[in-house]
C-alpha cells in the first residue's frame, strides 16, 4: 500500500539521544545502530539534553495536489516536506484533478511515487465517482491496485444511503473508510467558526453542529453496520463527545486532529490572515481544550496535518475570497511541542505516539518501532532548539502556513524512512 523510490538503504549510528518508543515501552538514553536500513543494535549510551530519538511520524492526511495542481505540490515536493517534518510515511488524499476514483489514475500515481517519493506514500481513493456522492467507486479494484483507504475528503458524503453502502462494502476490501464530516446545509456560506468572533467580524458562520451532526450520523451507521470508521480532522467538542460515546459502546471508530486545531482558536481569525482559513475552521477555546483532552486520553488517536498547499496568488486575496487550507507537514512537531508539550498540556511521549503508531494503527499499517530487526523508521528531534518559521525554509512548493512568523521550539534533526536517511539538518 505504501510506495517510494526503490534503491539504497543506509547504515548509521545514532548516539546521544534519549530514545522514546511508546510502542516498545522504551524511554532511555541509547545508542542505536542501523545497518543496511535495519536496526541492529540498541545499547546504553550517553544522553544529551533535548535530544530525542523516536519512531518516525506517519501523517494520515496530506494533499499532494497531484495530478492537476503540481504548481502547488508534487509527490516529490510533498514527500520532501514530509521528510523534513520527521515523517516516514504519509497518506495522500484523492481530491485531485482528476479525482483518484479509478485504478488507472491510482496506478499512474503509484508509478510516479516509485520514481519520486522521498518517503513512502499511500494513496487513498475516492468513495464516490468524481467525489460527487452519487455512485460508489470500484473499491475492490482500487484496493487491489493499492488504495490505502477510501475517502471523499474535501467533501462530506452527503447521502446517508451511500455512506451506508460504502461501510457495508468495506468488508470486501478491508481498507479503512475515512470521512470528512460536514452537513452542507448548515455550513453553506460559512468561513469562520460560528461564535463571537464570526459575529463580530461579520463572517458567515460554520457552526460546530455542522460537523457534529454528521459525526453522529456516521458513527450511527458504523455502529449499525459494525464496520470501522475513521473521522478526519475533528474540530468540535461535540464531535469528540460523540466519538467517545460511540467508542464506549464498542464502535471501532478512530479519529484525527490537526496541529492547527490543537494550537489555535478562532481568535486567530481576527488577524484576517488567509493562512488561518481552513475547513473545518478554527474553533473556540472550549473546543480546543476538548481536542487536546481527546488526544491525551486516546479518544483521538492520530495527529494529522491536513497539509493543504495553495498557490501564493490564491491566498493573496481578502480572507473571504481565499480558499480553505493550510500547510503543516514541516511545522507539525514544532508547533505541538511548543503549544502542547512545553506548557504541560500533553506529555511528549503521548504526542510521539499520536503522531506515529496511532495513525498507523488507524489505517491498518505496521507502526514504526525501535527494536532490533525492525526496519529503521526514526526521527531525531531537538526539543529545545527554537526557530522562526519563514517562507524560504519550506520544501513544500507552497508556503501557506499558519505558523509563518511564529517562533517554534522543536527541530527535526534527522529522519530515517524505510531504512534510508531522507532528511538531515
Amino acid at each position, binding site marked *: 500500500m505504501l510506495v517510494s523510490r526503490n534503491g539504497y538503504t543506509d547504515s548509521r549510528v545514532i548516539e546521544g539521544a534519549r530514545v522514546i518508543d511508546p510502542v516498545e515501552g522504551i524511554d532511555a538514553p541509547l545508542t542505536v545502530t542501523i545497518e543496511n536500513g535495519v536496526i541492529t543494535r540498541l545499547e546504553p549510551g550517553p544522553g544529551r539534553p533535548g535530544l530525542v530519538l523516536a519512531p518516525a511520524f506517519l501523517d494520515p492526511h496530506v494533499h499532494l495536489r497531484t495530478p492537476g495542481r503540481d504548481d502547488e505540490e508534487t509527490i516529490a515536493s510533498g514527500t520532501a516536506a514530509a521528510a523534513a517534518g520527521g515523517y516516514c510515511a504519509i497518506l495522500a488524499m484523492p481530491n485531485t484533478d482528476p479525482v483518484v476514483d479509478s485504478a488507472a489514475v491510482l496506478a499512474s500515481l503509484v508509478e510516479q511515487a516509485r520514481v519520486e517519493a522521498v518517503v513512502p506514500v499511500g494513496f487513498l481513493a475516492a468513495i464516490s465517482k468524481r467525489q460527487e456522492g452519487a455512485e460508489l467507486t470500484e473499491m475492490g479494484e482500487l484496493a487491489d491496485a493499492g488504495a490505502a483507504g477510501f475517502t471523499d475528503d474535501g467533501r462530506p458524503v452527503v447521502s446517508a444511503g451511500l455512506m451506508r453502502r460504502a461501510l457495508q462494502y468495506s468488508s470486501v476490501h478491508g481498507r479503512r473508510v475515512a470521512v470528512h464530516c460536514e452537513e452542507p446545509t448548515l455550513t453553506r456560506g460559512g468561513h469562520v467558526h*460560528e461564535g463571537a468572533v464570526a459575529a*463580530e467580524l*461579520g463572517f458567515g458562520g460554520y457552526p460546530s453542529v455542522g460537523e457534529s451532526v454528521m459525526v453522529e450520523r456516521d458513527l450511527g451507521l458504523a455502529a449499525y453496520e459494525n464496520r470501522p470508521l475513521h473521522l478526519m480532522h475533528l474540530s468540535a467538542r461535540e464531535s469528540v463527545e460523540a466519538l467517545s460515546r460511540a467508542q464506549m459502546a464498542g464502535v471501532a471508530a478512530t479519529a484525527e486532529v490537526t496541529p492547527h486545531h490543537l494550537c489555535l482558536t478562532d481568535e486567530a481569525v481576527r488577524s484576517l490572515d488567509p493562512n488561518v482559513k481552513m475547513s473545518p475552521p478554527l474553533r473556540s477555546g472550549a473546543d480546543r481544550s476538548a481536542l487536546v483532552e481527546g488526544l491525551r486520553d486516546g479518544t483521538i488517536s492520530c495527529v494529522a496535518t491536513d497539509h493543504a498547499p495553495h498557490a501564493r496568488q490564491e491566498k*493573496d486575496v481578502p480572507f*473571504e475570497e481565499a480558499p480553505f487550507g493550510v500547510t503543516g507537514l514541516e511545522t507539525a512537531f514544532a508547533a505541538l511541542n511548543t503549544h502542547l508539550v512545553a506548557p504541560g498540556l500533553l506529555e511528549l511521549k503521548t504526542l510521539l505516539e499520536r503522531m506515529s503508531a496511532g495513525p498507523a494503527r488507524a489505517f491498518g499499517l505496521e507502526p514504526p518501532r525501535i527494536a532490533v530487526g525492525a526496519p529503521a523508521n526514526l526521527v531525531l528531534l531537538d526539543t529545545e532548539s527554537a526557530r522562526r518559521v519563514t517562507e524560504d525554509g519550506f520544501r513544500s512548493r507552497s508556503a501557506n502556513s499558519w505558523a509563518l512568523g511564529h517562533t517554534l521550539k522543536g527541530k527535526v534533526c534527522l529522519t530515517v524512512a524505510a531504512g534510508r536517511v531522507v532528511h538531515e539538518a
Partner: protein
Amino acid sequence: MSIKAAGSSVDKGESLKDTALTLNAYDPDVIVIRHAAIGAPQLVAEVTGAHVVNAGDGTHQHPTQALLDLYTIQQELGRIEGLHVAIVGDVLHSRVARSNVQALVMCGARVTLVGPPTLIPRGIEAMRCETSSDIEAVAAADVVYVLRMQRERMQEGANYVPSLREYTARWGVTPERVRPGQKVMHPGPMNRGVEIDPRVADAPDALIEAQVRAGLVVRMAVLYDLLTHGPAVVPTEAAMEVA
C-alpha cells in the same frame, strides 16, 4: 479619482492586490475602498503606502457610517453616553450594525439588537450588547435605528424569514411601535413599507436627513484629518477600532 469594478481591470480578472499596487503607483495620499469581501481594506493597506479608509467591506464594518451616526446623535440629543439605542432588522448581514454597536458601546450607550432570531448572529452579545427577537424591545429605547432589509436575503430557499410580508408584520417599524420623542434613524437606502413605515420615516422625530448631512461633514473631516495628519492626539487603539 473614482474607480469602479465595472469597466476597470477588475473586470478582466485583476486581483485586488494588483489593483491596489497600480493605484499605489500614482502615490495617492488616501485610498477609500468599498468592497464585497471582508478584509479587502486591510489587504490594500498592507500593500500600499496610502491612508486607507474602509467605506464598507462586505458584512464586516462601515466605520464612517458609525461616525456620522454618532455625530448625528450627539447633535440631536446632546450626548451619547447613557442613551439606549435599539438596532432593528437584519443584523447578521449588516456592516452598519457591527460598526454602530462597536462605536456606540465604546461611547457608553446601551445597545439592543432586535430582529428575527435567524438574522441575529450567534455570539454577538460578546460585543457587549443585548439581543431580542421581540419588536416590543424598541419601546424602551431613546433611538430606534432601522436597518435596511436586503431583498436578496429573501430569495427563495434562503429561509431567513418566511416572507417580506411576515417580516414587516412582525418587525416593521410602524407609528404604533414608536412613541413621540423617540428618534428614528436609518442608514439608507430605505425600503419604505418594508422595514420602515413611510409615516415613521417622514415624521419630525426621524433623523434620516440629518444623517445624510452628517455623512458629508464627517467624511470631509475624516479626509481632512488624514490629509493634514491630524487630529494630533488620538488614542491609537480607539482610533484604529473606530476608523
